């Protein structure tokens, strides 16, 4: 029963209200989570607290990344500094799930404050990849992706600042969607890079992603960056038809150092689309090589500011220092992990007087160039296809001591966040050693329907999603 998709579970729940399903999944979490550490907190007693609404997700368990606020439940961003913090309110995304009848089903592990590409920087232990527990599940929504991939949950919410939904979805062989910036309310998402962050679904199938997006998307008066653009019914885009769809292959995305098996998988995917009647074109996104540098300037600048509130005064841990300055220093020294400190320092530096023009302002300019790249490319094509990550999941510890190498694992996902366009990762094959490979589809702002159409056609044609990790 744990292998059900959201869509299949809907039928199941109609029979008995879903208690058998929750029981089966709870049992699976109990047996598997000690091995994977995908859930930071999982309390079956809490999980059976039903959503109030009689909506489209009635009785369906959905797991939540630990940086999305749930009223009254400890929410920590996998950081020591927020230990014991219980938000007094629900994130809008959680509120919408509950109103749709969903059951909040555990909180998923992540990189501390979403800073990472491997789920190794969590203050509460690394999360492991269900396909190979010696490997990382990807980051930062690694817990959400691993939980879905290992059938411990039906679906999960993640957040994506530079690829944090798509890269772990690729590493774990599931579907991950980063919606257009502003499509899903960020209210209640503990901010990393405010102008990049988006909440999105991690699911077993493209169809499930559409079901969740129907609930999550839409304007929110609590978030002034949330768009009031009307929300289409995304399930209407689930048609096996890509005839005439123009798909672009960005030449700059087939980078040096890319794993040949990953490249091969993606090129094969392009062939599948071609066979299905899509038109494959080459496109250029000339400023791609600047994306990682710009991202690590602008996103960490925002992050350093967003994390200022963790000072030991109002929530989380507080060092027992007497003087104010020492209270700040010690609380932050004890509370933040190495990667968080690295990013706070970097962000503080790029914003400081005398460096602002050279870094932050310059970064914003290049960000505009990258956005322009996309607008230009989307004049010629409807969807852009690439790999999600340049390599298959790497070994735990392999890149931890080399931050730059780690940062490069988001090289293909970061541009979509810089430009604010929607992007989806879905499984497109496996390496010879059986590790999942994900491909990325990007579309014009608010054209999630194009992503669903292309992804659904590919998924139904290839049935890659049906393969499960051996656990």
């Amino acid at each position, binding site marked *: 029963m744990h292998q059900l998709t959201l869509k299949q579970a809907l039928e199941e729940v109609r029979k008995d209200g879903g208690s058998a399903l929750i029981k089966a999944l709870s049992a699976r979490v109990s047996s598997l989570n000690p091995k994977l550490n995908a859930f930071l907190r999982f309390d079956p007693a809490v999980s059976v607290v039903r959503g109030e609404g009689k909506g489209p997700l009635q009785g369906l368990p959905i797991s939540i990344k630990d940086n999305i606020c749930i009223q009254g439940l400890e929410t920590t961003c996998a950081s020591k500094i927020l230990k014991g913090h219980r938000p007094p309110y629900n994130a809008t995304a959680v509120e919408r799930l509950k109103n749709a009848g969903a059951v909040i089903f555990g909180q998923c592990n992540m990189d501390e404050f979403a800073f990472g590409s491997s789920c190794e920087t969590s203050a509460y232990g690394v999360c492991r990849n269900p396909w190979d527990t010696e490997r990382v599940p990807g980051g930062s929504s690694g817990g959400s992706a691993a939980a879905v991939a290992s059938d411990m949950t039906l679906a999960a919410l993640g957040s994506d600042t530079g690829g944090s939904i798509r890269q772990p979805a690729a590493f774990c062989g599931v579907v991950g969607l980063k919606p257009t910036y502003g499509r899903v309310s960020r209210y209640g998402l*503990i*901010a990393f890079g405010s102008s990049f962050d988006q909440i999105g679904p991690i699911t077993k199938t493209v169809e499930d992603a559409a079901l969740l997006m129907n609930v999550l998307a839409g304007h929110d008066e609590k*978030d002034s960056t949330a768009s009031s653009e009307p929300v289409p019914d995304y399930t209407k885009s689930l048609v096996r038809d890509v005839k005439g769809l123009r798909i672009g292959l960005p030449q700059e995305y087939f980078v040096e150092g890319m794993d040949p098996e990953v490249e091969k998988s993606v090129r094969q995917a392009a062939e599948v689309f071609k066979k299905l009647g899509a038109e494959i074109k080459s496109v250029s996104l000339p400023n791609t090589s600047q994306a990682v540098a710009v991202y690590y300037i602008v996103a960490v600048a*925002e992050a350093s500011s967003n994390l*200022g*509130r963790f000072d030991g005064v109002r929530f989380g841990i507080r060092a027992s220092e007497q003087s104010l300055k020492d209270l700040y220093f010690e609380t932050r020294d004890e509370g933040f992990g190495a990667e968080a400190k690295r990013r706070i320092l970097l962000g503080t530096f790029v914003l*400081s007087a005398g460096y602002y023009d050279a870094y932050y302002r310059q970064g914003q300019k290049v960000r505009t160039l990258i956005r322009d790249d996309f607008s230009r490319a989307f004049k010629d094509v409807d969807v852009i296809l690439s790999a999600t990550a340049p390599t298959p999941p790497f070994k735990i510890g392999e890149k931890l001591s080399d931050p730059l190498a780690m940062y490069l694992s988001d090289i293909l996902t970061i541009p979509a966040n810089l430009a604010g366009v929607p992007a989806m990762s879905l499984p497109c094959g496996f390496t010879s050693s059986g590790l999942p490979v994900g491909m990325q589809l990007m579309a014009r702002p608010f054209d999630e329907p194009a992503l669903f159409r292309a992804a659904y056609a590919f998924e139904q044609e290839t049935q890659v999603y049906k393969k499960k990790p051996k656990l």
Partner: protein
Amino acid sequence: MPLDDYEPVIGLEVHTQLDTKSKIFCSCSTRFGCEPNQNTCPTCMGMPGSLPVLNEEALRLGIKVGLALNCKISERLKFDRKNYFYPDLPKAYQISQFDMPVNGPGWLMIELKGADGGLVERKIRVHRAHLEEDAGKLLHEGIEGASLVDFNRAGVPLLEIVSEPDLRSPEEAYAYLTALKAILQYLEVSDCNMEEGSLRCDANVSIRKKGETKLGTKAEVKNLNSFKAVQKAIQYEIERQAAMLDNGERVVQETRLWNDDKGQTFLMRSKEEAHDYRYFPEPDLVPFTLSAETVEAIRKTLPELPAARAARLAKNYGLSAYDAAVLVQEKPLANYFEDCLKSKANPKMVSNWIQSELLALLNLNKLTIENSPVKAEALAGLIALIENNTINGKIAKDVLPLMFETGKPAGEIVKEKGWVQVTDTKFIEEIADGVIEANPKSVTDFRAGKNQALGFLVGQVMKASQGKANPKLANEILVKKLQPQ
């Protein structure tokens, strides 16, 4: 070098609380005097995950002030984060406006008393006026070894109005603040209550040798909680900096605190310790465009402002520019004046009675015009009694304090006290006869052409009638009686 050889250069930064029902980025109440942290929510507490949403009313009020100060209203609006750590700042950044303030350059007129007693106008340029959120408040009193934080003020909308360094004396600074406060009150955008923190002021003060054009090194003085304190602190700074220069020392740029009890400024932090606020655009608030129509619609809501009202009062009622300026300084005072005129009282008399007698009584009793026990209608009643000769001006000066004390109308007091002016010619003639008889020298003097003798005799008639005689009538009767037969 004598103090007079230096020229002070002063700029003021005024923070005014905009009078909105809810805070600038959340829907919490802005009510003053609530229990600590009663008016808080996840957003103004800076809870992780919370987001700001701009209160349109705060923006509207901010633009209203900008229009009244002749500012250039920005077409494109953006907010910025000003980052610093302090326990009363929940997010460790303040949402403010850095390089694109809603209100750009503007100006306001101040009026100073000239050497000849008339008014001299000076145009003071406003550099900018931008929106921002207030911080919370630390409570130390009665707490041993700890501090408590009250976030009720956190997120209260402020407009920071920054002047150019155009002010040249503590008096000018005072006049600027008075003029600004009057404008804010006329606009009804702020109650300008300094005790409750809804109007706060920092002063940038430097001095230079007269005739120099280069600016001297400034000190910023904070913690000024009354207009008088602003004046005193600026005077203190001028003297302190002059003494330093006279001693051959250099003034250094620093932030100083004013201690009102001691009447001195103290070093708060030097330039080296100055904050690096690491400003950057607030990503949680989307920049937006302000349409010309919106601005024009707000302009249409502007009320008559103090300067226009003073001009109207002077023109319509024949008041002097000085009197009109005094009356409009506080909107309630000008309202009171115009309310008096509803009873067709003589405007000049009303103006004089308000400015000389009524304000003195109010000051003495520490009352404002709004809670004056003598309402406009009652004052008009008193003046009517003078105009129809029921009482004379001298008696009226005794009637007003009694009205003030008892709240009774003038007519009732005059009746009770039997102060009705006597216009009975026979009665005055009898008294005049007695006075003439008792003062032969004055009579002789008057007849010899010494006119001041008449004044004395009138005074004697008034005295003998216990002030009740109509002085004009007494005058006439005496003159008639003293004509050489």
